[in-house]
């Protein structure tokens, strides 16, 4: 009857965690009454249940998970959907469309479309099945998809959605976070997308540290302030910046002739060519084509309407 780890200690596979009347849970196994870790992760004791929260790993579907997937095949009245991880999911038209629907279901959703859906069933015998019956599950149009490690998703959502709501509020973006490590981001301008990516990456690398929400909030507040500052009157701000930082490095004549060019800040409206660092992050850009009648839940063409409520509540 003993526990051999501290709260939130980083443990390695095979490490003895507890002995005696303790129960195993995720990331642990029992051998001869002793409980060992089976993962590298943070050990936790809840009641008398020992668990290890993984620090990394691929996505394994779980019933009830909200996921973001890409349609890969339209097969009869099924869609085969890639949700990441080792298992491909399928979505039956009955679970997505209202009857009656046309025989050719690709009219509603076609290859390449990105959807948010719920895992309705998954076990060892039969691969994951999806459903889009719940409210808010729909084709995601516009925006982009960011992939993060699925193990960090709980951290990105935060307790009762505190983290993701905070990010949405700061940046005024729409986002849907899938348990499969995909985050759909839709924002009016590129600068905010970049900030969102920065925030999510920061959470990913610092997921095992405490007080993260506050730090992210602070970082975003500062960055947004900068953004807002530069928005209404770009000229004076740029000049001050150039004088401040570039003067020692640049020859005086460059400074006079071209003030705007060496500006390090990203212009909010620079929508055109993707910057190299951003291209690295953007896994997949959802095509912004109008979809005629995707009425999964009665909410059509919600492009211009803020969709944050999905996440916020």
């Amino acid at each position, binding site marked *: 009857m003993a526990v051999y780890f501290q709260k939130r200690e980083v443990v390695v*596979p095979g490490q003895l965690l507890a002995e005696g009347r303790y129960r195993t849970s995720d990331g642990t196994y029992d*051998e001869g009454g002793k409980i060992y870790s089976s*993962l590298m992760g943070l050990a936790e004791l809840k009641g008398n249940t020992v668990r290890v929260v993984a620090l990394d790993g691929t996505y394994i579907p779980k019933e009830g998970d909200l996921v973001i997937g890409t349609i890969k095949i339209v097969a009869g009245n099924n869609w085969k959907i890639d949700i990441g991880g080792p298992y491909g999911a399928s979505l039956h038209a009955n679970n997505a469309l209202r009857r009656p629907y046309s025989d050719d279901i690709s009219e509603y959703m076609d290859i390449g479309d990105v959807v948010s859906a719920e895992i309705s069933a998954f076990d060892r015998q039969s691969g994951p099945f999806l459903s889009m019956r719940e409210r*808010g599950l729909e084709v995601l149009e516009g925006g982009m998809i960011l992939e993060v490690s699925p193990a960090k998703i709980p951290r990105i959502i935060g307790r009762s959605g505190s983290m993701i709501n905070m990010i949405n509020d700061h940046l005024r973006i729409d986002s849907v976070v899938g348990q499969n490590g995909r985050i759909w981001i839709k924002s009016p301008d590129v600068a905010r997308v970049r900030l969102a990516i920065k925030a999510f990456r920061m959470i990913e690398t610092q997921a095992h540290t*405490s007080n993260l929400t506050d730090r992210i909030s602070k970082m975003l507040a500062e960055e947004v302030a900068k953004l807002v500052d530069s928005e209404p009157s770009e000229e004076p701000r740029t000049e001050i910046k150039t004088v401040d930082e570039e003067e020692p490095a640049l020859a005086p004549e460059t400074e006079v002739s071209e003030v705007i060019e060496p500006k390090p800040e990203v212009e909010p409206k620079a929508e055109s060519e993707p910057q190299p660092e951003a291209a690295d992050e953007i896994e997949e850009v959802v095509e912004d084509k109008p979809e005629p009648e995707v009425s999964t839940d009665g909410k059509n063409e919600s492009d211009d309407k803020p969709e944050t409520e*999905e996440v916020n509540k």
Partner: protein
Amino acid sequence: MSPEVKPDFLISPEGLRIDGRRPDELRPIELKVGVLKQANGSASIRQGKTYIIAGVYGPRELHPRHLTINDRAYLRVVYRMATFSVPDRKRPAPSRREREISMVIANSLKPALFLEEYPKAVVDVFIQVIQADGGTRCAAINAASLALADAGIPMRCLVPAVAVGKADGKLLVDLGDEEDKYGQGDVPMAILPTTDEITLLQQDGFFKREELVEAMQMGINSCKYLHELQKDALKRVYAKKPSDGEDEEYEDDLETDLGDAEIAGDE
């Protein structure tokens, strides 16, 4: 390292080995975790002059499909040597030896893994020998098990491995290349340290029964030591990151978080 000459002795009159080690001393070992960005998990090992990188991908969908196992994941290990890893250029085509070592490594790692958690999927382990100087299969197992842990594959424990051999009639731990070539035998072994099970035991050369038993005991002791190094290497990855503000309110209480995650969907 070009024209190989057989050294005059493998054990000096003082009882030290060709590189100055004691018989039961390992070469200096450096383990690093997370060396590859694209892999789900990775590790490198430097053991003397041997240098190996291991990368783990998956669990992921298995292709070709006919290899799938319905009740557990398939463990696919690919051990390759770089053309420049040995003094004579190694021909780049996969050799019989590489295929055999791949299988041997897979067999020694399998008992440690909970592959039944991912039916029909595959866990890919790619091992690349950058520089070979004896003991590559054991070093590869050390690195591969770290990479598997880094990838978050559930496992019983890490798998340390070491080769014990015989040269000039003396038992030696962790053979170097010359000791391997000119010695009288070689016993690579891998163990599961939590239960002391042996998952790899091969032998070439001649050993008396007592010698083999003693060699195995030496091997187990060295493996235990290696296991400590492996644990350190894994923990180091997360230790160096700042974990300030003790634990005040670490709001990520996974139980609650997972429950809350659902609100993102419904409502």
